[in-house]
């Protein structure tokens, strides 16, 4: 049994290892970990493990990283942290980016997709494979040209004017108003004390509204390649303009790029996207991507009245799965589903594609764009009044009728 100072020193170094692997641990947390250990029987490996776990792991996604790091570090606790970290990174390719169980599942799926020769993995090996996925699929990366400052200014200007075609939500919070509303008793009471007791000047308040959350699902497959750069610019500007924007890109698989797009600097955001998202300009598997979204994300990002902005041409190459079923589920989970379809660049376009026919009955608002070559056109396609805006949810189920009108 090492003495207390040795233990504290080791725990501190273990904390540094975890920080290197992407957990958010400051000096305060390290101290809390040591404090937590003083409350349990440290010679009991499980208590030791779970006490540090309770103090340091603050998200479900970090559990796997903690487990791997714990196993590696405490085997030989006196090795230099950097060496262990290298080993950890080499083994599992944990980047400072958080790894979610979902992404690990994606790896396993990717393995299946690739039709790799399957064999039984030893438990230890399986863990490593579950974590190591970035090199499983060798896919295209994408280089975006740097944004010119004129382009940036244009994006900012448009976003400032941009109106998402979904009404603001009324919240349950109040804001004081000068006109009529409901009586604000607290302010009324204070005012009457100031003014004298013989009369009570009424003060008013009204329910606050807030813009709805937006979940953008954007198609980046080959058929959309011409628009990708502009769409990403738009989504970046949108993410930086308001709270509660979540962005997902999909081609053959679904990537949550919300964090990357929150970078203020658009070039940094784009570089990260280009490196992290691997299915640029390839095929489209809309229904399996939607299914992933429905199962793994919809409950987490569509609560509190968020609406979905779906940007795709609807050309699905997915023969498996039920696109219609997934669209229906998506529509039931979201407040509204707004579909922006850039395919309608030809005026005589008819919805022949199977995917489009399957999707149309399940959108609330269909925004065809004949000409989506600029941000300006995009903003007006989304924000303008010319789109089809079925009045209520029920009539919204048949946006298909409006397609022919749009194509005329």
């Amino acid at each position: 049994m090492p003495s207390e100072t040795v233990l504290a020193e080791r725990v501190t170094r273990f904390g540094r290892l975890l920080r290197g692997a992407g957990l958010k641990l400051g000096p305060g947390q390290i101290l809390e970990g040591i404090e937590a250990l003083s409350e349990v029987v440290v010679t009991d490996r499980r208590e030791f493990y779970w006490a540090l776990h309770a103090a340091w792991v603050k998200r479900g996604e970090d559990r796997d990283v903690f487990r791997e790091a714990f196993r590696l570090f405490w085997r030989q606790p006196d090795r230099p942290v950097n060496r262990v970290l290298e080993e950890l990174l080499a083994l599992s390719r944990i980047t400072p980016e958080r790894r979610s169980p979902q992404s690990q599942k994606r790896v396993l799926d990717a393995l299946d997709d690739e039709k790799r020769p399957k064999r039984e993995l030893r438990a230890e090996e399986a863990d490593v494979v579950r974590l190591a996925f970035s090199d499983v699929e060798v896919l295209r990366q994408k280089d975006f040209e740097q944004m010119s400052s004129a382009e940036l200014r244009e994006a900012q200007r448009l976003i400032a004017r941009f109106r998402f075609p979904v009404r603001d939500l009324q919240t349950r919070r109040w804001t004081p108003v000068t006109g009529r509303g409901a009586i604000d008793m607290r302010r009324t009471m204070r005012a009457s004390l100031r003014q004298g007791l013989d009369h009570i000047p009424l003060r008013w308040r009204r329910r606050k509204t807030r813009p709805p959350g937006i979940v953008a699902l954007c198609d980046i497959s080959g058929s959309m390649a011409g628009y990708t750069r502009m769409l990403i610019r738009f989504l970046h500007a949108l993410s930086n303009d308001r709270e509660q924007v979540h962005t997902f890109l999909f081609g053959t698989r679904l990537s949550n790029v919300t964090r990357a797009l929150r970078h203020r600097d658009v070039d940094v955001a784009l570089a990260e996207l280009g490196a992290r998202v691997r299915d640029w300009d390839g095929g489209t598997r809309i229904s399996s991507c939607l299914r992933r979204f429905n199962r793994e994300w919809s409950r987490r990002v569509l609560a509190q009245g968020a609406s979905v902005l779906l940007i795709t041409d609807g050309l699905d190459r997915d023969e498996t799965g039920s696109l219609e079923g997934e669209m229906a589920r998506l529509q039931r989970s979201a407040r509204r589903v707004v579909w922006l379809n850039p395919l309608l660049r030809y005026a005589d376009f008819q919805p022949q594609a199977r995917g489009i026919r399957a999707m149309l009955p399940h959108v609330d608002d269909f925004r065809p764009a004949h000409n989506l070559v600029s941000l300006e056109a995009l903003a007006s396609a989304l924000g303008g009044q010319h789109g089809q805006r079925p009045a209520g949810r029920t009539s919204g189920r048949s946006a298909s009728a409006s397609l022919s009108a749009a194509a005329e």
Partner: protein
Amino acid sequence: MTESGNVPGSVDSVLELLAGQSYIADRALATAVHLSLTLNRPLLLEGEAGVGKTEVGKVLAKGLGRRLIRLQCYEGLDVASAVYEWDYARQMIEIRLAEASGQTDRSRIERDLFSEKFLIRRPLLEAIQPSDGIAPVLLIDELDRADEPFEAFLLELLSDFQITVPELGTLKAEEPPVVVITSNRTREIHDALRRRCFYYWLDYPDAARELEIVRVRVPEAAASLLRQVVAFVQQLRSVELFKLPGVAESIDWTRALMALGKDELDGATIDETLGVLLKYEDDVGRIRGAQAQATLAEVQRELAAAPSE
């Protein structure tokens, strides 16, 4: 250690305390509970619906012999309904009375009006300054449903256990309450709040533990039925469903089957009672019929291969 002094002193005694209230916890959860009790920090529990997050708060209150104060969160939850509100009707009457008795000193009236006498205490204030003087268990349920401003407000409360009422000043807890926060992850809880808590992710239990949980909660059920129910639910959790059944569903299902007088699973009964387990129409449609039969056959094979007890 808190002053009430009845906090269990080790992980084992926490396990005992929970088990005494029919809550079967694993050691990892007990460690997190133990730390949050001894170090006076909130416990943040995340996990899918129906794995027993809320139950931890309730059971702790019973086991520690403290009052349970529960705050159910919803979007727009504000200070007036969560912390305190002034009793305006009584204040009005007070003003009229002061007027009638010729009281003219305004600052004095104001002092009187905004005193604790006119304060309506909501759950959080009650948890900080309990009327019976004993620190309660504060259960902040489904925090992910509340909005971000409310979460930010909680930061002050949970780090210093104090509440500021502008007209009165700062009210501080003499003895901090035991705080249990639950979240279903319909929205991510902010890092700042996570940092102040001990965290535990409640997973679906494995078959052995689930069997024990259901047995403790439905003691009158036959052992063979329990084994079948648990094995069936465990199988279902490996199917791609929109919403997997939790432990709460296993317990409900067992009770439902008992109420129907069944002591064994069969295809027809499963189809009729599937709504107890699965709460989405697509999921029910997917399992009902052939898939349920196949799963049942699988369960029967599995149980026949490993007869226990």
